[in-house]
């Protein structure tokens, strides 16, 4: 519980849900007759609705990006370090909107919600959604809340990919794009990690072909394994060495297959706590969304051409020790933006925390980010 709420926190926040009754046709060809989108907002929309910022979340994120849901809430939202009064995304200047992606498991329509046509959980039958489907869905969402353009769309990792997709699909509706720790598409190695995660979930006997909710069970071991694997890819070798080294949990080797080293204990804890807050089918779906992301493929594999229509100003950020979406991957985006003669800045933050660095308030990272957001706020009418 937050004993007191800090001055630079957005405070107690509330998730809201908008129901959309107009059908949404997805890239896979299937149609959702109706759907819900869960979201949170922080700050105030200004008179001419020009200060709206969209936050796009990563694989395991959700709409709860900042603040606390109640005074009993143990942890603040996933990007509380960057969103709030006086923080990089300053809620004194911006109206911040954070959406749970379609297919998510925190209130937006997804595998753990009821399919209105059958009255049963969607489970494995929820259509595979793509990043393009998300931007389409977010486009309908912005209309529903009467916003005609985003002054910035911001996201890290999978969220950064959504930002790119926004500039490609709705080039005229976005003034600024902040793309953090992302890539223009996944590498074979990225896909391989995702496949192992999926296999571990699907091979859990409790997975029940995805119908586990109806059977009142959860593929705990599979989802835990998937998360443990994911977590390794979010940290760097250095970060793990600094955090755990070869430290033993009980100060001695046990000559068994239970936990000897702290790192094992940490991964098991991360895996277990994830199972309590995330849905296995959503995890499967989001990893597929990642694998399928390749916006340049519609433009003859020419990313510069894909990005050519937008007049958005870009800030691209990567982290030196990130090997999941390494700086080289961000440089591909930067090269395409340069070819397309876009306004952009690219920053490589010296950080040893790996991919997770994008969630950590590293001073140089936050300074650059805050300066950039200040210039955006300064340009608001």
């Amino acid at each position, binding site marked *: 519980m937050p004993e007191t709420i800090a001055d630079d926190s957005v405070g107690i926040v509330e998730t809201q849900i908008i129901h959309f009754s107009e059908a949404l046709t997805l890239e896979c060809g299937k149609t959702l007759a109706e759907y819900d989108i869960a979201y949170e907002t922080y700050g105030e929309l200004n008179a001419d609705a020009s200060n709206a910022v969209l936050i796009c979340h990563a694989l395991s994120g959700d709409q709860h990006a900042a603040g606390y849901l109640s005074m009993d809430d143990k942890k603040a939202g996933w990007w509380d370090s960057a969103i709030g009064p006086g923080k990089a995304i300053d809620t004194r200047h911006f109206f911040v909107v954070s959406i749970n992606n379609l297919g998510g498991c925190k209130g937006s329509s997804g595998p753990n919600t009821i399919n209105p046509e059958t009255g049963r959980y969607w489970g494995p039958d929820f259509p595979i959604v793509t990043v393009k489907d998300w931007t389409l869905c977010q486009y309908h969402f912005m209309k529903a809340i009467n916003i005609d353009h985003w002054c910035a769309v911001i996201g890290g990792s999978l969220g950064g990919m959504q930002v790119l997709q926004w500039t490609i699909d709705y080039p005229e509706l976005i003034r600024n794009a902040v793309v953090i720790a992302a890539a223009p598409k996944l590498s074979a190695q990225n896909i391989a990690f995702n496949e192992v995660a999926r296999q571990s979930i699907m091979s859990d006997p409790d997975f029940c072909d995805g119908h586990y909710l109806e059977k009142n069970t959860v593929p705990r071991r599979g989802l835990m394994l998937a998360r443990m694997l994911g977590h390794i890819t979010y940290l760097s070798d250095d970060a793990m060495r600094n955090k755990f080294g070869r430290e033993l949990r009980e100060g001695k080797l046990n000559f068994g297959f239970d936990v000897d080293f702290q790192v094992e204990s940490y991964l098991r804890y991360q895996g277990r706590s994830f199972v309590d807050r995330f849905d296995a089918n959503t995890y499967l779906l989001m990893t597929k969304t990642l694998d399928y992301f390749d916006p340049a493929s519609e433009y003859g594999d020419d990313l510069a051409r894909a990005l050519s229509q937008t007049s958005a100003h870009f800030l691209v950020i990567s982290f030196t020790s990130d090997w999941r979406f390494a700086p080289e991957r961000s440089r591909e985006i930067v*090269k395409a933006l340069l070819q397309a*003669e876009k306004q952009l800045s690219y920053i490589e933050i*010296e950080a040893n925390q790996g991919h997770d660095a994008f969630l950590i308030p590293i001073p*140089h990272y936050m*300074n650059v980010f805050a300066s*950039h957001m*200040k*210039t955006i706020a300064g340009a608001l009418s």
Partner: protein
Amino acid sequence: MSPLGEHLAVAEGEDLRADLSIIADWIKADSKVLDLGCGDGTLLAYLRDRLNVLGYGLEISPFNIEDCVEKNINVIQADLNNGLKDYFSDNSFDYVIMSQTLQATEQPDLLIEEMLRVGKEGIVTFPNMAHWRARLQLGLKGVMPVTKNLPNEWFNTPNVHLCTLNDFEVLCKRHDIEILQRTVVDHSHRKGNWLMNLLPNLLGEIAIYRFCRNT
């Protein structure tokens, strides 16, 4: 990268430092410019605001990058010593500028080649090692020169490839590079008088060149 440290800073409201102002005079309005080692972005901000230039800067120092972002300059954090191929395709700029940076790079000759691969014209400025003060220190005192433009000692200088006007011109000849314009300024970056222009390699403290591929 700003090997001359504070020397590069221009206080707000002050006129553009003379060598930068000479560079700005050489650049056509509405052109596309790449500034290698753009420092705090002073030149690029000036070119954008006065000449409507589409400019990009390369810079390695996190502090300079923060200044550039504050000025809303297009800046890319990169190490010049890794070359430009990660980012820039052939002939994609009208001008590629390197101000007070050439002497601090690992392979100046390759970088000059890269400048002319990426840009139609290159502009460099560098401190002249053959200036009479430097000559006196080396020739009479027998010590490595330390001057206002080269404030570091031999053991801690970032300037690992110092040269003279003559040296630079020899390199250009060897690389089939045509010098389009040359000027020299003194240590306070004032434009040279007639004497300095008569004996630039002896009296010029900072050299400024504009060049292109020999056609």
